[in-house]
């Protein structure tokens, strides 16, 4: 409650600072009366003052958020009797956990340990004090920095440049956050994978043809030692994604061409939103559609041709997934095709080209980067899709080229490996990270290839 109150107060002071800064700049122009003009427009002086009012306290606030909890816990733990202070690392962790639960009030009254309760009280008391202190420090900093900037306002001050500098820095910060997150995720996956590869050789993983990650838990247990060949799982992923793309790319592209080139604006107005609804259907719904309608249908039609189709098949999952990703292809392609200037079409028509010639030779090449972008997006959705596969294609890792058999995919395996209680040092769970890393690298390569294709064949209009 306190921090939010102080933040509100801070904003109020900031708006006051804005007005004061602006006013001071105005009054300076009045004094100077044309002899020395302001460097920037008065608004910038106000903005600069307000920014200096908000930013330093905000930094302090973020800093406090980052460290206060661990600091307070440490201080609370100090109040515990010495017998409890020199425990092993694990036991301390447990104790801290208990303490936290107590502080959050998650513990029934009769289970409360009086010693811990005291620590919790200590924590809460300290928290109050630190919040008060934080508020005061923030206010003082705000007033101080505001005032010092306010006093330095003079006609020569380059307020606009300062403000632009601050804006630029914040832009850089935002993009850094995105980049750092990516790097962080990649690194954490990478480190876990390295742990996995210390136990299972890289070549076994990359080139192994057998996937059965079950491992004996105890020495006396019968069972395999687990084999971690990624090929069957990858093959399943590619087969299902391939089927999905084979469905989605032609249908999506053609419907995009129809919508943007042939359909009247009235048809467009209702057809496009309906197609986009497809993208909003939850994948579980697609999943049972695949399992209950499409898979039986495929099996029955297979029987007509005396083909043995398993009740779960790659084809069923791929077809339904294809329908799911149609809107990614169609909607994006439609947008880029629409963005091709009418002048291109006119130029082609005026040379006596037909509509289809114009579309094939002028419009699609000009829209190619966007179309490839849409296909890539669809492909990454297909590769990452889990639910439909679980429900329609099964969990068994067959290495097969027959789309009528059950297969499994990388993401499905990751889910099944990590569901339930797991210990995070056995190869069985660590392989999930290795699979994740592999998937990441493969999609990255796909992206690079697509980028190259686009660069090579792009026809840029103005």
């Amino acid at each position, binding site marked *: 409650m306190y921090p939010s109150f102080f933040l509100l107060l801070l904003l109020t002071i900031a708006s006051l600072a804005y007005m004061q800064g602006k006013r001071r700049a105005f009054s300076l122009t009045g004094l100077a009366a044309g002899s020395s003009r302001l460097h920037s427009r008065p608004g910038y002086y106000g903005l600069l003052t307000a920014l200096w009012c908000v930013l330093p306290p905000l930094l302090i606030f973020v800093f406090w958020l980052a460290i206060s909890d661990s600091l307070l816990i440490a201080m609370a733990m100090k109040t515990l009797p010495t017998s409890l202070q020199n425990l092993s690392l694990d036991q301390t962790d447990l104790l801290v956990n208990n303490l936290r639960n107590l502080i959050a009030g998650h513990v029934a009254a009769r289970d409360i340990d009086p010693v811990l309760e005291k620590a919790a009280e200590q924590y809460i008391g300290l928290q109050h004090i630190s919040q008060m202190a934080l508020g005061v420090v923030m206010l003082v900093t705000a007033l101080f920095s505001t005032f010092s900037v306010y006093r330095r306002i003079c006609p020569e001050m380059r307020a606009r440049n300062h403000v632009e500098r601050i804006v630029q820095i914040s832009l850089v910060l935002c993009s850094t956050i995105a980049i750092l997150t990516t790097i962080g995720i990649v690194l954490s996956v990478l480190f876990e994978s390295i742990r996995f590869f210390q136990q299972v050789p890289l070549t076994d993983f990359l080139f192994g043809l057998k996937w059965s990650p079950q491992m004996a838990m105890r020495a006396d247990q019968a069972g395999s030692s687990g084999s971690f060949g990624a090929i069957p799982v990858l093959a399943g992923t590619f087969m299902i994604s391939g089927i999905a793309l084979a469905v989605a790319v032609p249908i999506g592209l053609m419907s995009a061409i129809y919508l943007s080139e042939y359909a009247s604006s009235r048809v467009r107005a209702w057809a496009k939103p309906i197609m986009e609804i497809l993208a909003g259907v939850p994948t579980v719904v697609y999943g049972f559609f695949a399992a209950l309608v499409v898979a039986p249908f495929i099996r029955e039609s297979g029987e007509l041709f005396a083909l043995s189709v398993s009740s779960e098949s790659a084809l069923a999952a791929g077809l339904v997934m294809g329908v799911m990703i149609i809107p990614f292809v169609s909607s994006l392609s439609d947008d880029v095709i629409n963005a091709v200037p009418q002048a291109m079409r006119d*130029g082609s028509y005026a040379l*006596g*080209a037909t509509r289809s*010639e114009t579309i094939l*030779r002028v419009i699609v090449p*000009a829209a190619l980067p966007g179309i490839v972008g849409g296909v890539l997006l669809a492909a990454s959705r297909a590769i990452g899709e889990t639910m439909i596969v679980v429900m329609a294609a099964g969990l068994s890792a067959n290495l097969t080229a027959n789309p009528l058999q059950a297969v499994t995919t990388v993401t499905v395996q990751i889910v099944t490996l990590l569901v339930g209680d797991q210990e995070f040092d056995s190869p069985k769970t660590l392989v999930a990270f290795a699979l994740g890393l592999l998937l990441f690298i493969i999609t990255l390569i796909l992206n690079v290839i697509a980028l190259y294709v686009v660069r090579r064949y792009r026809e840029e209009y103005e």
Partner: protein
Amino acid sequence: MESMSAVLKSGGALFSGAEGVIQAQVRQEDKTPREDRLTVGLPFVDDARMTCRGVSVFYGEKHAINNVSIDVGRNQVLAMIGPSGCGKSTFLRCLNRMNDTVEGCRVVGDIQLDNLNIYDRSVDVVPLRAQVGMVFQKPNPFPKSIYDNVAYGPKIHGLASSRAELDEVVESSLKKAGLWNEVSDRLDQPGTGLSGGQQQRLCIARAIAVRPEVILMDEPCSALDPIATATVEDLISELQEHYTIVIVTHNMQQAARVSQRTAYFHLGDLIEVGSTDRIFTNPRHRLTEDYITGRFG
């Protein structure tokens, strides 16, 4: 002559329903009385390639061309002049039905090419546009290489049977448009990378590569320097031996140099048509005179 006036009348009757709207708009835009805006001069010729009778064009509610009747003579150059926004481009685009692609655009009246109504249901616009080529006011090269820009038309119409023949068509078209010397060593680079004036000539080369019989040019020299302009004017004079040409221009000297007949448009009306010599030496209509002597607004 009689049949012609009959057509004129029926053309007038076609849009009589919209007359009220037109009147209101005209009064808003211009003080010139209605009866002063009838075409003066000689809109009709004996040997006509294209004949237009009572042509009106609407963009939705907006009345852009008002009951225009004019002939385009065979192997002649017709220049269209007039202040900006008077409907020159709009009228030009009617002649090969490019207005079909504009949503909400409606063309009424009768336009014939070799005695065939091009707005007839039975007419296929694709061969029509191959026959009546067009160079647009704004250069619109395709985002392809310079070579492919020029080869586009010949390829789709199968005008060249071999690669060598295609090369020849491309080279001769570029030469005629006066662009060959500048681009001969970079035919594989994108046409969109050329300068504005070069793009304009590229579009001319692209249009004549299809060998249309009638060529419509919308300000083909607006971004060209005097030397390139002279090349294009030479091209027009050369083409005129075999082709029929309609050219829109804001440059009076150009109209005087290249055309045999000149038409003056004013706010959607065709004010005066006549032989170019006569129009520029002895305009009959006050509006025409004001415009060519530079007194217009």
